[in-house]
């Protein structure tokens, strides 16, 4: 088949290069491992770089086709238009299925390139070589999708020289430029720890080495996933006009599922690092996380489930389902095969211990993920059994996630105070005392400002308790180590906890205490509602070749003018409301002009819907704190105690990633000049209970 245009031809050549490089790279690396040829298996990085080059060429050609409005391509006919502003034209690449797969491919190729470069010195190591094979195979799968059923460079209807542009919802807010790529970085990033897990199973090196290798990759992809989800909520808030950040839409659930299992993983992995236990469980969580990204993509991209993200449905379902099946079968097979090596050497002494709390946390996260998955696929089950339509909506998920969330907040409060192995009641009573009073303080503040209802109040109280526990850990650590007390896994983790608590409290408050009113405003007549005054000044209308925009200029509290709008995109004929928000520290005032009410420029009245929502700003602040905390937790991790040193010994400064190599090459002595203590350790004065 002849490609449609120069852009199409070169783009397809790029995809072909990705496919060829990944397949031949995987095969040659496997052959090299079989032959024990370390030099040959270290060539995998060149294949990775070739694949990256191919992906860059494909994406560059797609962008060029979009920028030059190359309407010979079907994809540009679908999402391109002459009138789309420049930035939304860039984002148009991921506004439909084929381009989304292309985005997935480039992100994956970048990651594989990064892994290849990062481990270039150890590419001959079978663990790394097998991880490269897995990564190349996954990349090959997505290249195949892009080359076959989701071809972004397919020829369009001949002679057509126009397009409608991206879906209206995807061309009126700057966040469409950031939310998908960042979410994909998280989604796709999970592939790296997954690849190392499979490599560990294949090589039989199922000890803690692969965990150390992938800790940072897992943490960073978790952080990107968190940020991507939050940015999606922000986009929903700023664009959709119903004033919410989360609708339990299937696509949202598909991003939440790997987040839940991934969060469980980054906690339980600490038990394995510390105690050597839970090996099968950790592998299963990681495999589940990766498999869920594929399953979620299948559910939402195959059209079996409908959602507001339906603009990206297509014909890739069968491929994704088959790939999901392969992942599950291969992974479970490998775990069964390596069962004898996976038996844990350690024991858990008491449920009331740090590891016990991690296990409880894991059970709750797994249950949470199960509930979300069940609710998401339940309509399919009912349809299969009874051939009727059902909808499982937000009220179901809200009702079930609330108790789970409260239990998780409680664990978040108690766990940081629990010592490893076993806790006594006396130690707990002493360590939890001030954090508990923080919880009481939060509860008192909430009651004082008028909060009501048991569930949000419990959320505020437990949030304060958990924040107190995290704060206690940070205070102890900084008292001992100064600013260094803020870095490292435990303390960075506590900062992440603070961010998550802020998000949880903001969600509880905004879900429980949103007030709304529908106002019919006449020009020049102020009206008051929900403690604010609203005055319609005028209604203006502008039109260009893309859209007709009707804006209501509303004076809020006699102070500033806000302009909620209703936009009719001429190519789509659909009215899209664009809210206007006054953001505040304690509450947002969210104004929308009801679209479809037929309001036109120059009218003397308009129907305005107003939402007053508390603490929304803190969702985004919490997200920033989570990102900052993850960086602190991920980076200064190189100082590790040698397993044979007593817990009180100073921690040598080593390069953790090369630790295995260094231990093998025993000649290199660790530098012990920088002395510090592991933040997990309990200072002596606390043990005595003073």
């Amino acid at each position: 088949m002849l490609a449609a245009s120069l852009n199409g031809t070169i783009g397809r050549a790029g995809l072909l290069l990705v496919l060829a490089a990944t397949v031949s790279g995987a095969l040659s690396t496997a052959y090299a491992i079989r032959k024990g040829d370390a030099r040959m298996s270290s060539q995998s990085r060149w294949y990775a770089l070739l694949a990256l080059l191919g992906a860059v060429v494909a994406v560059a050609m797609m962008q060029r086709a979009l920028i030059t409005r190359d309407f010979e391509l079907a994809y540009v006919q679908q999402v391109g238009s002459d009138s789309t502003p420049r930035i939304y034209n860039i984002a148009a690449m991921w506004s439909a299925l084929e381009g989304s797969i292309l985005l997935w491919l480039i992100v994956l190729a970048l990651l594989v390139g990064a892994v290849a470069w990062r481990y270039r010195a150890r590419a001959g190591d079978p663990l790394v070589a097998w991880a490269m094979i897995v990564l190349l195979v996954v990349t090959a799968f997505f290249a195949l999708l892009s080359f076959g059923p989701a071809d972004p460079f397919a020829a369009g209807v001949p002679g057509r020289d126009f397009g409608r542009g991206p879906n209206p919802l995807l061309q009126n807010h700057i966040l469409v430029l950031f939310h998908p790529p960042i979410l994909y970085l998280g989604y796709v990033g999970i592939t790296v720890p997954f690849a190392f897990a499979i490599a560990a199973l294949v090589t039989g090196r199922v000890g803690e080495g692969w965990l150390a290798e992938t800790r940072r990759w897992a943490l960073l992809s978790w952080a990107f996933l968190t940020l991507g989800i939050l940015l999606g909520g922000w986009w929903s808030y700023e664009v959709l006009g119903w004033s919410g950040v989360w609708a339990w839409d299937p696509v949202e659930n598909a991003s939440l599922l790997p987040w839940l299992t991934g969060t469980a993983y980054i906690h339980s992995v600490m038990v394995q690092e510390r105690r050597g236990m839970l090996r099968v469980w950790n592998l299963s969580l990681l495999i589940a996380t990766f498999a869920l990204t594929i399953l979620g993509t299948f559910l939402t991209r195959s059209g079996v489930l409908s959602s507001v993200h339906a603009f990206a449905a297509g014909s890739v379902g069968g491929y994704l389902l088959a790939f999901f099946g392969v992942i599950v079968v291969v992974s479970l097979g490998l775990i069964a095969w390596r069962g004898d090596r996976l038996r844990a050497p350690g024991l858990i002494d008491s449920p009331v211990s740090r590891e016990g709390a991690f296990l409880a946390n894991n059970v709750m996260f797994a249950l949470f993920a199960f509930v979300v998955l069940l609710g998401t696929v339940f309509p399919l089950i009912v349809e299969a059994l009874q051939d009727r339509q059902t909808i499982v909506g937000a009220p179901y998920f809200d009702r079930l996630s609330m108790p789970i969330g409260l239990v998780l907040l409680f664990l978040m409060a108690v766990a940081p105070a629990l010592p490893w192995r076993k806790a006594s009641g006396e130690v707990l009573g002493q360590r939890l005392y001030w954090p508990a009073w923080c919880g009481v303080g939060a509860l008192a503040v909430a009651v004082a400002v008028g909060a009501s209802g048991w569930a949000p109040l419990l959320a505020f109280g437990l949030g304060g308790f958990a924040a107190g526990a995290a704060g206690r850990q940070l205070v102890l650590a900084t008292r001992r180590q100064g600013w260094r007390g803020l870095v490292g896994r435990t303390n960075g983790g506590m900062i992440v906890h603070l961010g998550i608590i802020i998000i949880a409290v903001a969600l509880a408050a905004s879900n429980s205490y949103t007030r709304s009113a529908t106002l019919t405003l006449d020009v020049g007549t102020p009206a008051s509602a929900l403690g604010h005054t609203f005055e319609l000044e005028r209604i203006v209308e502008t039109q260009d070749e893309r859209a007709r925009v009707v804006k209501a200029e509303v004076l809020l509290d006699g102070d500033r003018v806000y302009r909620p709008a209703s936009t009719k995109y001429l190519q789509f004929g659909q009215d899209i409301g664009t809210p206007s928000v006054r953001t505040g520290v304690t509450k947002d005032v969210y104004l929308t002009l009801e679209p479809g009410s037929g309001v036109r420029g120059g009218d003397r009245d308009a129907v305005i819907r107003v939402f007053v929502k508390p603490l929304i700003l803190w969702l985004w602040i919490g997200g920033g704190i989570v990102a900052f905390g993850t960086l602190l937790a991920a980076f200064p991790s190189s100082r590790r105690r040698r397993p044979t040193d007593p817990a009180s010994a100073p921690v040598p400064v080593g390069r953790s990633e090369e630790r295995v190599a260094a231990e093998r090459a025993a000649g290199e002595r660790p530098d012990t000049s920088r002395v510090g203590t592991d933040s997990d350790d309990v200072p002596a004065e606390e043990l005595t209970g003073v």
Partner: protein
Amino acid sequence: MERTRRAAGRGRLIGWALLGAVVVALLTVGIVRDRGAESSQDRADDVARRIACPVCDGESVFESRNNASEAIRAAIDERVTAGRQSDDQIISYIESRFGGQLLLVPRATGIDAVVWAVPAGALVVALAALALTFRRWSAQPRAAPTESDRDLVAAAMDDP
């Protein structure tokens, strides 16, 4: 020393009791004054959140911005303002007038009950599994180190 520690312990116990009392008092205040939706608009929103938009995919009437949902919202507003029907009566009315399965919360009858029962069952199974695991762990005797283990440790300790 021992005496001061015991006294401190007693003080803390009193502190915890005080804390419990304060929490109960604050929660009681918060729960007692909770009167549900404060205005008829808030109540209408609560009802709208429970009804699926008939023409779109997976959005509630509250979230959806299209004409069908707007019509349903108007109907809900009207019923709520009239103030004669309960939320459930309003939902049945909407379902009969606009047709179809519009309730977003699956009912707890028939096959729909599965969606409620299975998570509860999963919780019970998970907790039981956790309890069993802990019991198995605590029942297992501590393995004594073998001679080769001791050699390994000795070799590692000698390693500079």
